[in-house]
């Protein structure tokens, strides 16, 4: 028993060191821009850079649009599968896992072949339509996280019985979906949304190959030319990601709506 406890503690310590030491190292390095003393100069430079603001703002917008489109696609799909087509669940799960299996670079080259300027649907023809393509590609990229989060939420409530209860009281489909189902999977949708945000905000491959001014390519550009600022940006990106994780926890455990026992 005691040996087991010691083993667990050793595993925890090794795991913590593995994750924390590089972070501490990066953070410490980001503070050494001023010779001989610690300072936040690297952060000051990063925040003052108009490209940082532009790319971060662009990626934030893309992330929000991705979340909106993702929710509109995933929630009704998951609801319908739960309610009427449970046999399709394995197939849909397989499809949603594809972006984890197929590298982003393969997907984006596929997009470029399908939607180039000489195709039937020339989405790469203008900046706005390329933004649209980028949003859709992000939706595909974040699909495993969004679908799993929403599906888990749907499974936690008895979708079929709640739907029938609402229908029995005279409700139609839009009312059932927006007033009964959505509020009860709100925490799950927000979890999916934060995971999507964390995925999109630092995404490099798709934004770079579609030539969009996103935060990921900016990180890469700074990393290639500067010393201390990339470390500061890495810490900032890390904090944004962890803030998202924290928000998932807050939303999940805050005003939690429990299913009736």
């Amino acid at each position, binding site marked *: 028993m005691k040996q087991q406890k010691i083993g667990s503690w050793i595993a925890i310590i090794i795991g913590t060191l593995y994750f924390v030491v590089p972070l501490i190292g990066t953070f410490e390095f980001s503070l050494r821009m001023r010779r001989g003393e610690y300072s936040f100069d690297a952060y000051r430079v990063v925040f003052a850079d108009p490209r940082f603001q532009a790319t971060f703002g662009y990626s934030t917008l893309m992330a929000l649009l991705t979340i909106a489109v993702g929710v509109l696609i995933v929630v009704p799909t998951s609801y319908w599968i739960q309610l009427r087509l449970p046999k399709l669940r394995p197939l849909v799960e397989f499809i949603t896992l594809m972006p984890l299996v197929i590298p982003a670079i393969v997907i984006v080259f596929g997009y470029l072949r399908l939607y180039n300027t000489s195709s039937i649907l020339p989405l790469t023809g203008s900046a706005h339509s390329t933004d649209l393509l980028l949003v859709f590609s992000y939706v595909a990229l974040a699909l495993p996280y969004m679908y799993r989060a929403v599906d888990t939420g749907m499974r936690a*409530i*008895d979708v079929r*019985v*709640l739907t*029938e*209860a*609402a*229908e*029995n*009281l*005279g*409700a*139609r489909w839009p*009312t059932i979906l927006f007033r*009964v189902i959505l*509020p*009860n999977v*709100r925490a799950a949708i927000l979890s999916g949304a934060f995971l999507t945000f964390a995925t999109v905000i630092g995404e490099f491959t798709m934004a770079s190959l579609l030539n969009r001014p996103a935060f990921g390519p900016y990180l890469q550009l700074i990393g290639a030319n500067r010393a201390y600022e990339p470390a500061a940006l890495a810490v900032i990106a890390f904090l944004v990601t962890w803030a998202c994780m924290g928000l998932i926890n807050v939303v999940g455990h805050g005003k939690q*709506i*429990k*299913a*009736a*026992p």
Partner: protein
Amino acid sequence: MAFLDLSDVRKNYGPNTVVHKFDLDVERGEFVSFLGPSGCGKTTTLRMVAGFEVPTAGAIRIDGRDITRLRPNQRNVGMVFQSYALFPNMTVADNVAFGLKIANKPSSEIKARVEEMLNIIKLPHLGGRYPYQLSGGQQQRVALARALAIKPQVLLLDEPLSALDAKIRVSLREEIRSLQRSLGITTIYVTHDQEEALSMSDRIVVMNEGRVEQIGTPFEIYNHPRTRFVASFVGTLNILKGKVVDPAAGKIVIDGQELFASKRIAHLQAGEACSAALRPEAASLHQSELQEAAKIASAFGRESGPRNRMVGTIEEVSFLGSVVRIRVRFKENAVSLDTFNNPNTTPPARGMQVTVSFAREDLLVLEGAEG
């Protein structure tokens, strides 16, 4: 014309027929229970009335209006689910008000109706609570209030008490029945609990394997079961196997002892095998002929009409508190009978030879060769 009318309703899932030719007329204000084991088609039939399942054939009418193909939200039928199905994101008051809001009732009317319903279910102070803050019994009451708030033409209850513990189940079933009586609402109640069905219903529909076995009052179902299934499913029952001797006289032989049934046996021939049913409470136990005569004469002022007698040996004595259950074996067959516990008398011992007597009208020969 019946208020709720199900005529020739059938339901198939692919090649499987789950409800065969279901015919039922329910009068306005009547409380009818569908009773049967799991998978007998009772919930499917209820769901067809609610509109969640579409019948493969047949018609369902409420107050003369054909609702067979209407969507559930167009039927004005209230339903209470086994798992309560309260909306977890809404308070008790919001749950009760949901159907009224959907119907675009004025807010003053909604408020008054919600208050009225919460008073009816005796939870006027819990309007602001969420479902997870209520006990199972309270949740089911709220579900009932929500279903009744929209003033449905028919109330459907799908095993509403099966998730509750025994004591709450008994008190809540009395509340449901008294509420149903006071509102005069036509009600269909699905249950697999025969005690629930017997104690609450005006009529019971006993179902088995998608078929209606018998429709009748609780008294008829319990005392005059038409089939062996009804007899064995409703209450405890002794099934005795024997042979028909004289169908016209209702005479049969069981383990070599001649007995008379309640009526002539129209469906069987002499020499055919038969099954007879006897309720445990219908039989009396006697250690001597004298004791038997005295007991019969004093039994609830009943006249000691012609009775059947069987001699056997006590095989088992089970003390059940207020009742002592005694099993008497003859040869192939055995009979369990119940006697009230008397603290001043020791229960009879195993191995004792005794006479079991019962009125002719209590011995029921069941339909079908083997009942």
